[in-house]
């Protein structure tokens, strides 16, 4: 029985939150890695663009809610998602046209593109603030729990409860669907193959008649979709606060680099590695260990306090940079 209690505590406080968070990070890191693979720069505006796409989705959600639309247990935000993606895609296509295309044509140093993305970050940040403000917004409606603590306890008779929030389940399901669709697109369709070819070897791709501007446009649209979905899932799961979206940039970059910049499968692995380490290192293990029959005394068995969760992504980043700079899945080097 105690082993089961330990297992339930572990699932409840470590596995489920980390899996949901990992799925969000993986989607974010996929966007970073795609942009890096095709456009060859680290997009510092990623977090703020996520916030922007989410802001549009939230406004659309409010609109749908005011029309009296409801999806029962599922948040209305999912219905508003296509509007958010479209708005975000149009915006990033416009920024590409106005900002990035110039440097791409000039074949500027990647670091100049990074700098330009800082300018875009400021503008996205300002737009989000003007659109929706800086306060915390909760926009998840529908059923709160799929499994709630009390029901689980009564059902199993265990001491420990298990909660599975609707948003967590939705996060994982949506992420799996998106990743499946993305990989299908990249591996099976002609456009997807063109993107991969362009990412592998630009000159060779040009030689075989691939239109670079089309590849770039496709990349931005897919990236906008990934960013908005990741942002909305993150906002549904926690709450929407624009500054948090700036801060999530670090774990997302860490995930993309751990997996190997430019490698989609690596981005997914990286997202889960970062999320699970973050949760495991900041969780006080006392309860789990006590259920397993060890006496822990006064210690909480918490390796680091939650405020330092960014330190975890940073340390993972440093370890990878030191020992395997191209990442686990051998992304682009240099």
């Amino acid at each position, binding site marked *: 029985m105690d082993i089961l209690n330990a297992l339930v505590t572990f699932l409840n406080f470590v596995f489920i939150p980390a899996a949901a968070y990992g799925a969000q990070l993986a989607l974010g890191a996929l966007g970073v890695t795609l942009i890096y693979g095709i456009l060859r720069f*680290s997009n510092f505006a990623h977090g703020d663009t996520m916030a922007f796409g989410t802001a549009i989705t939230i406004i659309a959600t409010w609109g749908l809610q005011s029309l009296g639309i409801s999806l029962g247990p599922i948040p209305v935000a999912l219905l508003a998602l296509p509007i958010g993606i479209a708005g975000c895609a149009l915006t990033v296509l416009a920024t590409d046209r106005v900002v990035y295309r110039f440097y791409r044509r000039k074949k500027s140093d990647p670091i100049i593109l990074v*700098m330009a993305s800082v*300018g875009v970050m*400021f503008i996205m940040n300002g737009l989000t603030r003007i659109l929706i403000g800086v306060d915390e917004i909760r926009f998840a409606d529908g059923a709160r729990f799929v499994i709630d603590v009390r029901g689980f306890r009564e059902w199993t008779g265990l001491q420990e409860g298990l909660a599975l929030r609707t948003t967590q389940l939705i996060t994982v399901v949506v992420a799996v669907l998106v990743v499946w669709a993305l990989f299908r697109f990249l591996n099976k369709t002609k456009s997807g193959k063109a993107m991969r070819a362009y990412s592998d070897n630009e000159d060779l791709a040009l030689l075989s008649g691939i239109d670079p501007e089309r590849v770039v446009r496709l990349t931005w649209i897919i990236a906008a979709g990934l960013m908005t979905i990741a942002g909305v899932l993150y906002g549904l799961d926690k709450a929407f606060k624009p500054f948090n979206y700036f801060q999530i940039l670090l774990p997302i970059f860490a995930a993309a680099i751990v997996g190997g910049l430019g490698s989609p499968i690596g981005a997914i692995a990286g997202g889960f590695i970062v999320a699970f380490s973050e949760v495991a290192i900041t969780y006080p293990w006392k309860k789990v260990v006590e259920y397993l029959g060890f006496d822990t005394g006064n210690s909480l068995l918490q390796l680091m306090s939650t405020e330092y969760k960014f330190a975890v992504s940073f340390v993972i980043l440093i370890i990878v940079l030191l020992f395997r700079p191209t990442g686990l899945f051998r992304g682009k080097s240099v």
Partner: protein
Amino acid sequence: MATSRQAETSSRWRAPILVAVLVALFVLEGTTRNALFTGSWNTSLAILNMGLISAVMALGLNMQWGYAGLFNSGVVGFVALGGLAPVLISVAPVDGAFGAGGMRMIAALIVGFGTLALSAMTWQRSPRKWRVPAIIAVLIVGFAAYRWLFDPAVDAIEANQAAQFGNLGGLGLPVLLSWPVGALFAAAAAWGVGKVALGLRSDYLAIATLGIGEIIVAVLKNEEWLARGVKNVTSIPRPVPYEIALQQDPAFIERAQSWGIPVAEASGIWVKLCYAGLFGVVLLLLILLAELSLKSPWGRMMRSIRDNETAAEAMGKNVTGRHLQIFVIGCAVMGLAGAMMITHDGLMAPTQYNPLRYTFVIWVMVIVGGSGNNWGAALGGILIWFLWVKAESWGPQLIGLLTSPLPAGALKAHLLDSSPHMRFIAMGLILLLVLRFSPRGLVPEK
């Protein structure tokens, strides 16, 4: 950043013109009262003082980006770390804090950093087969010892006069001494980051510094034993007189009356002028040193490395070593600016360290001013700071003007409400426009 003869001839008057524009802006701010300016010398000088500090930050960043092409996106962290120095150096000691857990804390920090150093040594020295287990053993033992020392020390220090202090307290030394110490703090952190992230591709440094910036700010917010975290440390001593003291000083009252300015206003202006003098001296001294070093063989080597790393390496220059050097120096300057800022504010409030404001606005300063040119970075710092402050009041006025034809309603109210956020869009636009149309900045590199 290739130089051409034409660019050189056109740039000679740029710096003096920019100086003239800045002087005009500050004089207007000080003298005329209208929709754009406040007409108060106190406000004008307050902007100038923070502008001078921003100029020092921009100078530090310019050394890294302008001389060496290093992308540091953790400026906020190094500024914050420098700001720790006035708290630890100049604030009066807290009774009993050091006795409670000071020695234990020092031991904990020694063990902590010792563990890191030891694991680095283990990695280099031990035979290949044993590397991984050895390093893991060192880290586990070191971490356990560190926590065993650290946790009780924190509890003891935070329990000591918890309501009023609960921190380690300072040494009670003169506050000016804390400025170089702040530089040292930032330099030490920079050495650690640089050692790891330099020598890899350029955006890795950007991402690693982004992380270290977040972590330093998180440490300052959460480690209450160090500088009271979010409870803030006030009462940081000043290097200049207090307004209250001046207002009660008969000699000063007399002087103020002879100038025909109310005493309260005069005292504020006088204090701010003192600060401006102090900061101005530091800034000019730094520019002088930076200019001298840029003209020396070392400066030429730095620029040659920036312009062509491979060629410089072929000439036998240690590129990574030089990069580390300039990265540490630049961060030291940022730390110095951070210490100056906390001295000026008289308050250490870690919540103010927002990366947009303290990292990316500094970037805008350098790019707009002219990367690679010290005068450009410094003047760009003052100019952008002025615009950043004024954008807060100009934004709503601009929106008010633009929305005046709109009927009163929810949309107009919303636009007016959110108009202070216009400054972010303005900063982004300025950065993008300069980057696109004048990538060498207002005062280009010679």
